């Protein structure tokens, strides 16, 4: 871990100001990913701005939905009664991720900003375009069992590791940010990026911008939803493939559908065409299969992760079945519903 200046900010404005023109400044809240990366010498901040004392730890009613302060911990969010009642998809996605200890420390804003778990990104002995632009991507043609099947580039095939963000993508949350140029709102779909030729940039945040809140819209899909996560052990592992599904049903027909995948791309992966395909169709396995086929049609697997295409296809079908039946995947009973 390198040497750095430490600043403790009391307000958002102070935090933004402290960021200023400092060399490699980073905001720190829960620290569960940043401190981890600093110990590996992957992150080398020149200045750490401690934002944990900012007044951003409330969950408030807002415009028919909820406004989640950026410092609300993952655990506080998951166990909030309003979230449990109206946004149980979000609750389940959070509880499917990490461990209780990490969820107690990790913040909402930090969850959005966590970085990939690509082996090569984490190991400074190897090249990595995300860590050191222009050095190459050894995951391509290397160990890529856990890597992206959608939206990857020649420069980077990393995935975004969050579970919570998959639910936020499905719910179409909005990210409120504040920075040197003031406050702005970013649609969740526009918050994270695909790697393209600049994989070092994970998000569309501008330098010095800080996540202030995540706003949930009114519709929470609390009746017909699921978060189905498939991984290499039954808990405390990142997703190979995860599916966040939310449906509004009209009798036995799909009125609206939301579908997002985790563990398969540089950002939570949505396919609007597949969601449109579901709309108005009977909520049957055949319909779900057609949607799943549409999603995976654009998959481009790597040398070792071809299985993810079929796993994603089947998981989408199963996830939509769970959502339609109103039998969301249990977090604690590991039998898949």
């Amino acid at each position, binding site marked *: *871990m*390198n*040497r*750095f*200046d*430490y*600043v*403790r*900010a*009391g307000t958002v404005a*102070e*935090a933004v*100001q*402290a960021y200023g023109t*400092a060399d490699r400044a980073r905001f*720190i809240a*829960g*620290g*569960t990913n940043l*401190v*981890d990366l*600093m*110990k*590996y010498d992957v992150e080398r901040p020149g*200045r*750490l701005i*401690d934002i*944990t004392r900012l007044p951003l730890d409330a969950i408030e009613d807002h415009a028919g939905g909820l406004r989640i302060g950026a410092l609300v911990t993952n*655990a506080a969010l998951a*166990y909030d009664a309003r979230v449990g009642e109206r946004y149980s998809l979000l609750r389940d996605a959070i509880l499917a991720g*990490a*461990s*209780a*200890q*990490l969820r*107690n*420390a990790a913040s909402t804003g930090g969850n959005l900003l966590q970085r990939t778990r690509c082996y090569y990104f984490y190991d400074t002995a190897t090249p990595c375009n995300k860590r050191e632009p222009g050095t190459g991507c050894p995951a391509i043609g290397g160990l890529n069992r856990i890597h992206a099947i959608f939206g990857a580039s020649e420069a980077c095939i990393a995935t975004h590791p969050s579970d919570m963000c998959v639910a936020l993508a499905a719910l179409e949350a909005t990210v409120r940010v504040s920075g040197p140029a003031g406050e702005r709102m970013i649609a969740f779909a526009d918050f994270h990026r695909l790697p393209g030729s600049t994989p070092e940039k994970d998000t569309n945040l501008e330098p010095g911008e800080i996540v202030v809140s995540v706003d949930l819209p009114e519709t929470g899909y609390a009746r017909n939803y699921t978060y189905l996560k498939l991984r290499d052990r*039954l*808990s*405390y592992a990142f997703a190979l493939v995860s599916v966040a599904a939310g449906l509004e049903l009209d009798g036995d027909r799909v009125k609206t559908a939301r579908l997002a995948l985790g563990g398969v791309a540089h950002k939570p992966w949505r396919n609007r065409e597949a969601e449109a395909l579901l709309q108005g169709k009977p909520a049957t396995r055949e319909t779900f299969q057609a949607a799943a086929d549409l999603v995976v049609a654009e998959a481009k697997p790597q040398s070792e992760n071809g299985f993810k295409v079929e796993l994603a296809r089947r998981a989408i079908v199963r996830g939509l079945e769970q959502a339609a039946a109103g039998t969301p995947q249990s*977090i*604690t*009973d*590991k039998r898949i519903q």
Partner: protein
Amino acid sequence: MRLESASPVAADAKIGIRLTINGEVRDIQVAPWTTLLDLLRERLDLTGTKKGCDHGQCGACTVLVDGTRVNACLILAVMKDGAEITTVEGLGGLANGGAGSNGLHPIQAAFVEHDAFQCGYCTPGQLCSSVGMLNEGHARTRDEIREAMSGNLCRCGAYTNIVDAIEDVLQGEAR
């Protein structure tokens, strides 16, 4: 030096913080890159809290910060200025008269009784995690306990005994 404003503290300076550790108030000068785990183990001789992975992937360093279980390895100590920390060394004192004649917290006694460890290295983290889990109050069934305790690896494989020990304490609380 206490830090009250948003002016940066230069990289070569130490920062004064106050922590209440196992009930004892301590004023400490700490570098900003010192984790709570390294502070406890290297500076305060509280080596009961273990370093297993130093990256939040094993749970051996689990302590209670203001009653909540967290991984001490991922926390910069300077950020917890003012917090109350409980480590395995302080669990007996947490028991509020519930500690047995041996000075053990009921969960510590249950771990011994159920042989919920072998080498003992993950044990302080398992214990603090158990107490944190009981404080949270979300886990009652064996399935729920297993999931809630999955952030604590045990390479000796004592998991079933750990669940037995926790169940025992839960049932004791229910009585």
